[in-house]
């Protein structure tokens, strides 16, 4: 499989009143064409920042301080805003948490899909509304012609998420970034939305980066998992291998805290300690060491790097 997105030693820092927050430090991973990769971690792990950086939509306070983001041979950290704008929406697109908030509340959904088509697609103005209806039908919205004239508030949360998916897929991108796409949806709706993304991705050989805190969701829909903790990639590998035999102590701890059938409450264990303060964290050193029961003296040294790629690897001096 050929590589589509390669994130290499990406570092991002945010200027805040309390000091510089090193939100991402030397993050590396890659996605091949047609592959589905999960970016997994708890809140504050830097999953969303990674996605925002890849899309070039970081908050102005955030800055890429190092590394490269290579999309289909183009280095996005060097590219002009024009070039990125051209890719965004056409070649790479994103669906967000809380679909209702991500849609424009005062534009009809058909119009919002047409906007994307007219901006990025090769389509005549007169054909855009019909194409919008076709896209709504494709994401399984019943009575699409009528629904295309609806406003977001007239649709349920699940319907809004389908509209978001229709917008994201309008120009047949080669990469879809889905940032917690099913948070706030019912499990039944979640299953339908995730099936839809998976089926469309397979049909079009589209690569998907699924950002989620839900290991179970990742295990059902993804080929590979990249685990993040406090702005570092701590482990990555094929999903079955990583879940069956996690190598980083953090991944193992995360699994041991996740409720699942056959496990009693007493068998679950919390992860000790808290996320380190990223304003004070020393550069290039394991950020889990303070919470880790496998810590050794050499853990204070520089972090073993994880090269981007499909192999199972953990950034740990004393892996399991």
């Amino acid at each position: 499989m050929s590589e589509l997105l390669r994130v290499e030693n990406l570092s991002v820092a945010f200027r805040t009143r309390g000091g510089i927050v090193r939100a991402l430090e030397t993050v590396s991973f890659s996605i091949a064409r047609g592959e589905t990769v999960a970016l997994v971690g708890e809140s504050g792990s830097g999953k969303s920042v990674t996605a925002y950086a890849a899309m070039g939509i970081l908050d102005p306070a955030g800055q890429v301080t190092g590394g490269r983001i290579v999309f289909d041979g183009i280095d996005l950290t060097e590219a002009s805003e024009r070039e990125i704008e051209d890719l965004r929406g056409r070649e790479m697109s994103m669906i967000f948490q809380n679909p209702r908030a991500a849609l424009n509340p005062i534009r009809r959904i058909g119009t919002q899909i047409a906007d994307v088509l007219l901006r990025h697609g090769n389509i005549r103005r007169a054909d855009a509304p019909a194409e919008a209806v076709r896209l709504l039908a494709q994401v399984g919205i019943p009575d699409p012609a009528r629904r295309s004239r609806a406003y977001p508030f007239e649709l349920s949360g699940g319907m809004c998420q389908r509209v978001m998916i229709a917008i994201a897929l309008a120009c047949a991108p080669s990469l879809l970034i889905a940032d917690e796409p099913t948070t706030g949806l019912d499990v039944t709706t979640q299953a339908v939305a995730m099936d839809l993304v998976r089926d469309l991705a397979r049909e079009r050989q589209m690569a998907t980066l699924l950002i989620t805190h839900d290991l179970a969701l990742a295990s059902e829909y993804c080929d590979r998992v990249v685990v993040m903790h406090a702005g570092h990639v701590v482990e990555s590998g094929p999903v079955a291998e990583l879940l069956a035999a996690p190598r980083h102590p953090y991944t193992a701890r995360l699994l041991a805290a996740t409720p699942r059938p056959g496990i009693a409450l007493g068998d679950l264990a919390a992860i000790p300690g808290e996320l380190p303060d990223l304003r004070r964290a020393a550069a290039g050193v394991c950020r889990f060491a303070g919470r880790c029961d496998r810590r050794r003296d050499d853990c204070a040294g520089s972090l073993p790097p994880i090269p981007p790629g499909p192999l199972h690897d953990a950034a740990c001096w004393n892996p399991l």
Partner: protein
Amino acid sequence: MTALLDVINLQKIYPVGGGGKARGQLHAVDDVSFSIAPGETVGLVGESGCGKSTLVRLLARLHDPTAGAIHFGDTDLAGMKARGFARRPERAAIQMVFQDAGESINPRYTAFEAIAAPLRRLRGLRGTALQQRVEELADATGIPRALLGRFPHQLSGGQKARVGIARAIAVEPRLLILDEPTAALDVSVQVVILKLLMDLRQRLGLSYLFVSHDINVVRLICDRVIVMYLGKIVEQGPTAEVLGRPAHPYTRALLSAVPELTLEPPGPRPRLGGEPRSPINPDPKVCRFFGRCPDGRPACADSMPRLSPVGPGHLAACHFA
């Protein structure tokens, strides 16, 4: 064992549409009956719009039911007006823990003030007695005393959740209604809060009504489960029974939608397509799940299935269960 809470044929209908004269009747909670024994944890599951939240508000006596009875101990709460309930002694006996502690705690109250408010209002505590009780509660819920002076935005998600729990147990309730208390938390914090809740239940002899979306969490802590669909209970029974041998097609669909930590690629799973029927003026003869149900037959449109036994303590409302 006599029930702590006994809900009988509870109903809540909201008038909708058309100014003045209501054109429709929205059946938010329809003919719901169940009970909770002392010390029991009962899970309440179902998708958004199924009436969980309305039911919770009726039980917490924030809304008035249209019909039915809520027996709590020896009193019928259904007859008491929601307006004014806050001044009754029963108010303290049923307390709630809300979904997002960060949203439900007054941002201008310190942790101390948040926990002290119900003690002042319902117990009339002041001064040292108040101070002592708040500290006792902080200890019981694992809030370091040094954090009591902090505002919600200065607390972590787990600490805010603890404040929400401390505030709810402050006036020594007998029933705690937990509305997705861990939905906003990371898994590692969730474990700690669930263990705290189970520990408090035992120590204080509490009963829980645990509203949740998360079947895997319900499985962990609930003795019994109630499944609601469009205002009606479609299935209820012991957790192992309902989740292990679901009798209602909706429960089956719900369970098959839950992602599982699997090492093998999951096989094809039945998915629930479409949307629920409208809760406005529902046909009393048609099963609420009809039309969306994978097993629907003509009989389902002729008579509403009633909850009937399918196993020990296990009820399901389906003609074909």
